[in-house]
């Protein structure tokens, strides 16, 4: 019979930094051989809990492949060593125990994850959020797990993206096929002079990454159309409409209603802004509010008419506020309400928006629309704003 000292030599022991390198390389099964309460307090990211008493029963599910590289750890290295021996006896070919356990790991400055799902750095970064009773750790985790799509990385998209990134929205998708132009910098504060000529989605991503590395930015460097919108929208939880043209806004509405995705929609021109939140079937949709787009002369663009730069900030941050409320599930989003802002007088007006029972998109008897007809109007001539 092998003595304790001899068996300790048989099981491979690795240092925490070595384990970290292997884990980063991928293809490692990481097993935590402690008790649940220890795991709750802090564990290695990706570690699967298999308490020592349940090893025989549960290891098969946690580590089905006996030839896979399997690293075990515990608090100080003893339990994981014994567990590694047991695994070898069960036929596991490539196991190692982490010397010194999670204590040594933390001593070497390596990160752990708490049961709350946030690292110590995150708990610090978002402390001003988690202090709020209405938000708390749960609310912050919702933000970290949320996927928000911003249609347009320009005037409205810029401030919205900045504040959603700061808040820790885990995935931010950006749709824009344009590049940064000097005339954008009067209001599109996520870009800067060095980025002139750079695609807006890339420029935005660089700014966001520097602000908050927790955010995963997905660049959609394209224009939305009936052929791609359903696939793109499906990946996200909430959509922000910061488009600069009607066809996109109507297309976005039709697709988001079909996919039941809420849309926070704003628009700006000169000194005026509007914002509302469309939650399909709970409140009105964009078409309930604006059944028909206006002709071109009643809908000039910012480039034709001008806009006070800060309007983008005011309405964009209001959009971010709506998104956070939807993600966390608190407060009262602007569902069924259209908020008007007039900057010269600094006046807000709230109008009621009702669901239109005859709405061709969200009304009770609305017909099913083929993909290629999303965003279109039955009377095509009426749709000439372009």
């Amino acid at each position: 019979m092998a003595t304790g000292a001899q068996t300790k030599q048989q099981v491979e022991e690795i240092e925490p930094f070595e384990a970290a390198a292997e884990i980063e390389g991928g293809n490692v099964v990481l097993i935590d051989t402690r008790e649940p309460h220890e795991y709750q307090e802090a564990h290695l990211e990706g570690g699967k809990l298999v308490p020592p008493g349940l090893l025989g029963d549960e290891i098969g599910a946690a580590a089905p492949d006996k030839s896979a590289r399997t690293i075990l750890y515990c608090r100080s290295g003893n339990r994981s060593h014994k567990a590694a021996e047991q695994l070898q006896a069960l036929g596991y070919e490539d196991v190692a125990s982490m010397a010194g356990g999670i204590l040594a790991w933390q001593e070497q400055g390596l990160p752990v994850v708490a049961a709350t799902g946030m690292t110590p750095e995150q708990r610090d970064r978002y402390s001003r959020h988690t202090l709020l009773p209405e938000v708390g750790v749960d609310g912050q985790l919702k933000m970290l797990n949320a996927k928000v799509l911003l249609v347009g990385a320009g005037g409205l998209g810029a401030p919205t993206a900045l504040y959603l990134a700061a808040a820790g929205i885990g995935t931010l998708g950006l749709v824009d096929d344009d590049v940064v132009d000097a005339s954008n910098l009067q209001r599109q504060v996520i870009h800067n002079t060095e980025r002139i000529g750079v695609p807006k989605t890339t420029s935005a991503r660089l700014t966001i990454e520097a602000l908050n590395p927790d955010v995963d930015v997905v660049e959609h460097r394209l224009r939305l159309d009936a052929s791609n919108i359903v696939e793109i929208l499906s990946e996200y939880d909430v959509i922000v409409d910061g488009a600069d043209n009607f066809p996109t806004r109507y297309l976005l509405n039709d697709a988001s209603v079909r996919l039941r995705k809420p849309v926070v929609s704003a628009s700006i021109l000169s000194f005026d802004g509007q914002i509302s939140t469309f939650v399909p079937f709970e409140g009105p949709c964009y078409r309930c509010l604006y059944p028909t787009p206006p002709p071109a002369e009643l809908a000039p663009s910012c480039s034709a008419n001008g806009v006070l730069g800060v309007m983008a900030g005011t309405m964009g941050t209001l959009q971010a506020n709506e998104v956070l409320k939807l993600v966390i599930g608190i407060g009262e989003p602007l569902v069924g309400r259209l908020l008007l802002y007039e900057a010269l007088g600094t006046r807000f007006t709230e109008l009621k928006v009702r669901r239109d029972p005859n709405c061709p998109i969200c009304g009770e008897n609305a017909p099913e629309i083929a993909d290629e007809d999303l965003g279109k109007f039955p009377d095509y001539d009426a749709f000439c704003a372009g």
Partner: protein
Amino acid sequence: MATVRIPPVLRAQTGGQTEVEAGGENVGAVLRALTAEHPATEEQLFGPDGDLNRYVNVYLNDEDVRVLDGLETVVSDGDTVIIMPAMAGG
């Protein structure tokens, strides 16, 4: 008298005014008073058949007149009529 709020895109037609006082028993009459004083607004607001253009939203205080009585919606002294076409700018 009611106060009619003029959207940015129509201000050129009202000599730059953002608000115009206009009298009338109902929304239709108030808007007609507006177009009488500023004829250039007529085409933007009304179609050839005399109906309000579908792409212009009109609110009496905070309700879309389409959910009230449309152009027949009664207007009281001190009410606000808001003209609001959609804006696309982002």
